[in-house]
């Protein structure tokens, strides 16, 4: 996958847990254009091991001098976000992928309801720029733990004015999804990004109210879970690889020097799908992409988040 060389030009602590990073191209030229909702994958060399984490681009899609991302420090993660917080400094060169959009606004939408929980606000920042420019009918519902965790609340107020509705948990303010989605005009689309429970509750509420599937959008990148180490065989490359407890299968494949496709690295886009040629044990499907039937068939696996148990797993790669 071709990468863009960037360097960090600014780092700002926005909340106790969130840092905001600004990148420009290393050679000073413009960055590729993108659309609201896009993300890039940042590649980090942590002690010789390459970590690749997806982050939403937060700036206005109209601006191509710099890219902006925000990173929440995930204490019990496998280190990518902690490294971003503690080791990445201004002036440091980094590699990122070209922007990819897996969470774009519905072009035909008459009204857009954006629902963000905590750091889930990030993909909406660029969408808001698009919505404001199009003069679109939208509402942004932003829920967060306590006032100091409302990253960007002030900035959003300025940009969105009356479109913004905040819900501060510590002050007992709750977003009532049923009331929100119950009486919306035809042609409304809902978008949600945030903690798992919030995403599921939104999807459930909209579906139960009879909203058609193509009006319901969510973005939730999973981070690859850790687990027991296991071995895989790549049939076409004819090699055997050990996947350590800490690594994802995709990372192990990449570390072995084999090219593998990916877009989201979070089990949602489907790009990394591999055919399973042989397996003697259980596959641990952690993705949100394969259907239950596909998962049960043991014929396909998403190596960015899924793992395996057993002695033998042969992949068509």
């Amino acid at each position: 996958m071709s990468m863009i060389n960037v360097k960090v030009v600014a780092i700002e602590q926005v909340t106790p847990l969130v840092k905001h990073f600004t990148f420009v191209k290393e050679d000073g030229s413009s960055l590729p254009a993108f659309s609201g909702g896009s993300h890039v994958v940042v590649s980090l060399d942590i002690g010789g091991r390459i970590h690749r984490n997806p982050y939403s681009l937060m700036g206005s899609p109209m601006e191509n001098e710099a890219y902006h991302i925000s990173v929440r420090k995930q204490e019990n993660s496998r280190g990518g976000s902690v490294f971003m917080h503690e080791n990445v400094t201004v002036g440091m060169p980094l590699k990122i992928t070209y922007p990819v959009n897996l969470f774009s606004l519905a072009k035909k939408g008459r009204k857009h309801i954006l629902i963000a929980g905590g750091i889930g606000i990030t993909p909406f920042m660029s969408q808001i720029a698009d919505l404001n420019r199009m003069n679109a009918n939208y509402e942004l519902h932003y829920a967060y733990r306590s006032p100091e965790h409302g990253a960007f609340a002030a900035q959003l107020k300025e940009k969105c004015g009356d479109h913004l509705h905040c819900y501060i948990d510590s002050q007992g303010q709750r977003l009532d999804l049923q009331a929100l989605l119950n009486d919306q005009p035809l042609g409304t689309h809902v978008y949600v990004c945030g903690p798992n429970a919030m995403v599921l509750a939104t999807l459930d509420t909209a579906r139960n109210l009879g909203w058609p599937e193509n009006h319901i959008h969510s973005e939730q990148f999973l981070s690859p879970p850790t687990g027991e180490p296991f071995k895989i065989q790549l049939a076409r490359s004819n090699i055997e690889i050990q996947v350590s407890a800490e690594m994802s299968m995709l990372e192990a494949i990449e570390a072995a020097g084999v090219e593998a496709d990916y877009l989201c690295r979070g089990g949602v886009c489907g790009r990394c799908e591999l055919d399973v040629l042989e397996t003697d044990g259980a596959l641990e499907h952690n993705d949100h992409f394969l259907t239950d039937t596909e998962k049960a068939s043991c014929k396909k696996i998403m190596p960015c988040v899924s793992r395996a148990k057993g002695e033998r797993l042969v992949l068509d790669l």
Partner: protein
Amino acid sequence: MEHGYTIKSKPIYGALAWHDKATVHLVIAQSQGGLAVLKLFEQMQPKQPVRVLYAQQDTDYAKTLKKVVPEGLDVLNSEQELLDVLKSIMPTMRMGLRIYIAGSEGFIWSVAEAVKAFGVENADLMKEQTDTLARTIYCVHCKAITHNITTNIGKCSGCGRMLFVRDHFSRQMGAYMGLMIDAESPGELPAIEEIYP
């Protein structure tokens, strides 16, 4: 007809079935589409309110529908009358509305076009093709629309060219593409056969 592969733009129609989640169901049918509505009501009676708009033609299911549909049935005398009623009730509808359409392809797409103006997208609609397989075609040369073409080659109502009916379907126009067949050697036509009865 083109063999051996499917052209994505040729719409695929299914059979009507209730969505179990909805706030209101709106069933819209014409002529033999009435039978599809009767089958729908054989499945079950949804808990949510149901509205049925039916345009009767020669084949008439109006009588049976009146017996089977407990309330909310409107029997209209033409497609135009039906579209007028539809346009008058759409402004009261909100998200959670589910729409079901049964009728000829031409009817399905006139309804789709009418509700599109109210923010309902094509993918939101459940459709069942009944009645005729006759195609509406649009002439790529003069842009005229010609209805009820039942043969592989039809005459354009606008420019009079003989058009070959392709499987290429435009959802916007609700019509198939028609291409002049004898452009190379005028007057030389292959056999004209009825293939969309």
